[in-house]
């Protein structure tokens, strides 16, 4: 490859990861490459992988140690249909010898399972049968969602075709004010980039503010790059990444960062100094407004939801519990709290967080996707309103098609549950 003409400029992190995955010295946006997969993840949608896998004539999974199954949408199974999906996956895992199955009792939201067990590390190409697989790009990886038929091909071959995405740089500086979080940052970015602004592209977060973000905060911002249409969110790995993965990384790391002269398709500059909390109003995650403006409109809520792969880690629940302590859920409001994994549930039990929420009148559920997707629990009736820490507010997302979902930070969800209307957490701090 030494005689290949150079691009004449540096490479972005996403380009470097895909060059490594495809065994090439360098790649350019638009180029179609065959990438070797470092980690493949399936949840219940993986049940639809089994039939095409057999139809392809495949028998063996390319590398059982690179496959994780984590059921999360209906845990424990809440319908006969869900029970069948789980059984199909258990049978498939047994038949093909897949040892890494996070079944009921060890369960958690698939992306959190990958994160907290170190299944995705810097330099990886990771794919999962869920659109929010983008979250794992926070490790300095390219992590993206695929459908179950494509997953069948990955299980059979260990690779897939990808079009190398151009990268949008989101450069963030400034310090968060009190009560303002990484969720508010990503909502603000969505308000600028919009739901189609990063379609097929990588979104790389850079700048001093991003360098100061913890891994859970990086997971939150990379998670919602899915709502921008992106192929992956990505953050250059640094000491924070290394420290998070030091004891848990499941395979060798290949940390890379964007070159100084990397070519970004565009750069979005954000200064979070003085930024208020943000909220995405119905019916799109990019319908973003400053939270105080919406608070003035006195939007009464029927339900509040603190959960989802975006914001249900221990840090989110601690922050929520600190605000909840000594307060009550407003009459007429159903407040659902669902941790992102079973270890987080255990930690909440240990720290008294569960008691704080249940004493206040909230429902604290086992770990699952819970109310986020409108197919298991916490379903909204027609015209109902929900304040949610999740990632989508499309029509019908949590139940009735005209139910209205306001997306916000965990702290704002707690404030709204207490006030009975969309509220600013800074009023409770």
């Amino acid at each position, binding site marked *: 490859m030494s005689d290949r003409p150079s691009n004449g400029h540096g490479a972005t992190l996403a380009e470097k990861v895909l060059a490594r995955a495809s065994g090439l010295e360098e790649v350019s946006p638009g180029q179609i490459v065959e990438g070797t997969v470092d980690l493949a993840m399936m949840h219940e949608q993986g049940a*639809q992988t089994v039939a095409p896998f057999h139809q392809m004539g*495949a028998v063996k999974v390319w590398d059982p140690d690179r496959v994780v199954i984590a059921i999360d949408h209906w845990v424990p199974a809440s319908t006969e*249909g869900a029970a069948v999906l789980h059984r199909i996956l258990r049978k498939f895992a047994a038949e093909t010898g897949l040892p890494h199955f996070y079944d009921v009792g060890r369960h958690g939201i698939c992306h959190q399972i990958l994160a907290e067990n170190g299944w995705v590390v810097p330099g990886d190409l990771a794919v999962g049968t869920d659109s929010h697989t983008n979250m794992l790009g926070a490790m300095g990886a390219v992590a993206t969602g695929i459908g179950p*038929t494509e997953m*069948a091909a990955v299980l059979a071959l260990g690779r897939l075709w990808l079009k190398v995405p151009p990268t949008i740089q989101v450069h963030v500086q400034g310090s968060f004010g009190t009560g303002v979080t990484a969720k508010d940052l990503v909502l603000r970015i969505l308000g600028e980039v919009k739901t189609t602004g990063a*379609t097929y592209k990588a979104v790389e977060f850079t700048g001093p503010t991003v360098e100061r973000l913890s891994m859970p905060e990086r997971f939150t911002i990379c998670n919602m790059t899915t709502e921008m249409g992106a192929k992956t969110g990505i953050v250059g790995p640094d000491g924070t990444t290394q420290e998070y993965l030091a004891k848990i990384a499941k395979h060798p790391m290949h940390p890379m960062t964007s070159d100084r002269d990397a070519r970004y398709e565009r750069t979005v500059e954000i200064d979070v100094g003085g930024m208020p909390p943000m909220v995405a109003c119905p019916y799109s995650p990019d319908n973003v407004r400053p939270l105080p403006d919406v608070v003035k409109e006195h939007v009464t809520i029927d339900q509040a939801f603190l959960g989802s792969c975006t914001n249900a880690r221990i840090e989110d629940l601690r922050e929520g519990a600190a605000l909840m302590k000594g307060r009550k859920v407003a009459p007429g409001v159903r407040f659902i709290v669902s941790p992102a994994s079973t270890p987080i549930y255990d930690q909440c039990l240990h720290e008294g967080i569960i008691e704080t929420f249940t004493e206040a009148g909230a429902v604290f559920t086992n770990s699952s996707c819970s109310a986020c997707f409108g197919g298991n629990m916490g379903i909204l009736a027609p015209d109902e309103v929900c304040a949610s820490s999740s990632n989508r507010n499309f029509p019908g997302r949590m139940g009735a098609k005209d139910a209205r979902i306001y997306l916000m930070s965990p702290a704002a969800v707690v404030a709204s549950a207490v006030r009975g209307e969309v509220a600013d957490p800074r009023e409770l701090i």
Partner: protein
Amino acid sequence: MQAVIEGRVWTLGADVDTDQIISGKYLTIIDPNELKKHVFEIALPEFAKEARAGDIIIADENFGCGSSREHAPQAMRALGVGAVVADSFARIFFRNAINLGIPTVEARGVRALFEKGDTARIEMAAGRVTNLRTGASVTFPPLPKHLLDLLEAGGLVEKVRRELAARSPAGGAP
């Protein structure tokens, strides 16, 4: 895949997400013939009953955004949808539809040319979509060879089946 596809048109707006194509409450259904009863229940409720094999869906920007659920294109395939054309697609929907062998065409400006019930002609290799009622047309960059081959094979299952069979002539697995 036919080189030229013609069919009756159904139109949809912008940002039709997968929740509007197949609602979350149906995600435990695996049988495509059951799924097809619920396709577009939120975005286009009459579609599931009235759609005929060969019908073409023409949508505005960002069609199929949202979740990775393959239930959405699976239900369309079960109904015999002949092609899906949009001003732009969300990436996972696009991949899923191509992988299932559904001709999927991104043609800027296409939605504005059509009304429900029109007849569309799609020339895959030339890269042109024409409204046979009005004569208006738009061009699009033809799909790369890699994807045309995938459609030609009838989808990813068949393509991988051939690849695995070629590796192991006895028909066994790798």
